[in-house]
């Protein structure tokens, strides 16, 4: 490893698409003769906007099609707001991929429950792609998705395509809605009792705000899932992405290299503990 891991490589924006009023998706292609590195579902890249700064963003594309990097993100700060204003052809610096990935191998032969809250769906989409492309290797597949309001739902067209398949159970809910919404209203945990997975042979993967994840874990445990069958994705302040800067520490773990995907039993003593 002689290359400086802090060096960023220019990628060109092939497409930038508005998903909702504050969330957008970038499709990036490498510039020059850089080869895109393959990534595993759950990993992230550090994306740099020239002169503005860098942020960690999960990769949300298909792991089999890694010549184009797909990133969906919300515009919340200086860097992501600057990113939102970029055009097709503009350049973004990319470093990565970093981090641990979803347990796609361990999940083979089991039912898979994917629980996504809000902006938590993008980091899980690559695993849904992989589940669907190797569908026979897995048991029942559930995709449970909760968002704030119907206007915040991501990838709706795609989710409808998944729902149309007979071999995937898709259930969506929102925290609040007005009359025209014919779907579920309520927190995403309310979707779990209706998902008939086999708790003795299920792997659950979830991403969302920490509170939502804690409630989801409780609901899954109520159904009989063991702590070793539950995987979560954590988030902390990151500056380097590979364990040098110390910012992303969560107890003894570096979220950038021991995570962001963690098996719940390993991080259990620290999840929900104040200010860790």
């Amino acid at each position, binding site marked *: *490893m*002689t290359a*400086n*891991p*802090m*060096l*960023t*490589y*220019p990628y*060109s924006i092939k497409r930038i698409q508005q998903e909702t009023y504050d969330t957008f998706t970038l499709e990036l292609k490498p*510039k*020059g003769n850089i080869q895109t590195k393959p990534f595993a579902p759950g990993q992230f890249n550090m994306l*740099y906007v*020239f*002169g*503005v*700064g*860098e942020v960690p963003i999960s990769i949300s594309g298909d792991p089999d099609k890694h010549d184009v990097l797909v990133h969906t993100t919300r515009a*919340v*700060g200086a860097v992501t707001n600057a990113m939102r204003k970029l055009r097709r052809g503009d*350049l973004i*610096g990319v470093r990565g991929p970093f981090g641990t990935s979803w347990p796609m191998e361990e999940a083979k032969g089991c039912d898979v429950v994917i629980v996504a809250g809000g902006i938590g769906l993008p980091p899980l989409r690559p695993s849904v792609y992989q589940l669907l492309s190797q569908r026979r290797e897995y048991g029942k597949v559930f995709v449970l998705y909760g968002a704030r309001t119907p206007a915040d739902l991501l990838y709706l067209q795609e989710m409808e395509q998944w729902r149309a398949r007979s071999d995937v159970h898709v259930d969506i809910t929102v925290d609040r809605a007005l009359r025209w919404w014919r779907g579920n209203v309520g927190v995403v945990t309310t979707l779990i009792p209706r998902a008939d997975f086999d708790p003795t042979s299920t792997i659950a993967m979830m991403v969302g705000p920490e509170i939502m994840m804690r409630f989801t874990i409780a609901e899954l445990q109520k159904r009989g899932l063991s702590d070793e069958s539950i995987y979560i994705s954590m*988030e*902390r*302040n990151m*500056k*380097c992405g*590979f*364990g*040098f*800067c*110390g*910012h992303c*520490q969560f*107890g*003894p773990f*570096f979220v950038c290299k021991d995570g962001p995907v963690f098996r719940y039993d390993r991080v259990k*003593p620290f999840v929900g*503990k*104040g*200010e*860790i």
Partner: protein
Amino acid sequence: MVGPSLQVGERVVLDRQHLQQLFDALSKRGYRILGPTVNDRAIVYDELSSVDDLPTGWTDEQNAGTYCLKKRADGAVFGYVVGPHSWKKFLLQPEMQLWQAKSAESGLKVLEGKEVTPKAAFLGVRSCELHAIAIQDRIFADGEYVDPSYKSRRENLFIVAVNCTQAGGTCFCTSMETGPKATSGFDLALTEVLDDKRHCFLVEAGTELGTKVLGELSYREASEEEIAVAESSVEKCSRQMGRTMNTSEIKELLYRNYENPRWDDVASRCLTCGNCTMVCPTCFCTTVEDYTDLSGQLAERRRRMDVCFTMDFSYIHGGSIRYSPKARYRQWMTHKLATWIDQFGVSGCVGCGRCITWCPVAIDITEEARAIRESELSHRTIT
């Protein structure tokens, strides 16, 4: 004197008047010599041009929250311990450029920071500091990812260690098993021998390179008596430690005590000034800052050392994870003594005592660890 070639591990004596030769031999080989010198009423690490720059005849009086230099009655060259600086100043660097990027018609060009790696010799590295350097090596030079700047500075480094013959007021290297005797990680190790009979240094060669440099100096054979005197003064030093730390199962102790009321107690004193992180030889957290020039054509990324006591450190959309001073002090101490062990296989503390000396409100990490340990005992006696 060019005598028969020396072996690694061999010990010889260099008389005080020949110490300058060490400087000359290193300079001749292109090394920039860095070591202790008096500046701003403290003994700091800086570039040395000759033996005269060393703090000969000075000693430091250290205790919690206090540091002061005093003149010695003798002319000892290394009669003090460690000051506010540590060697990370030269290896990890407080501030540096990572790369520059040019925005042009053709796109974005990223240029790695081209620095000329200085060839440095550290003169006067204490045993605790050797351990600290080894700890940072694990992170920046020996892992899956490498910091190229750290690695190249480290590879071009010549280390002259000094065995302490006098412990400092806040030292506890014996508790952390990091001294006072330097056992490895040096090219040469000196033990100062100063009494009414003589003033000389027992020199041990630690590497092949060390033997070569030593071979160029006017050394002489070490007598049994000189070796005994040197060894006994180091041994005496190990019994003079100003502090102690019970490290028995300290990792488990701190993992059990995240909610201990002692943290509130220390939080009422801690200013979150971060002095402890700045003087600590193993603290390595850094942050990254992105700059751009006025034209918007040139951007730069710089890295600088960071402090986990700031509100900024753990900021993530909406707020800081560790918003209270209590949580930030707890993070620093628990990382240093406990989680570090799970992360890197060793303790993050080398017992140098700097954090105790340089804390403006005299918080003592050994005292805090003791209080937490004892709070468990008192619980048991009550039940």
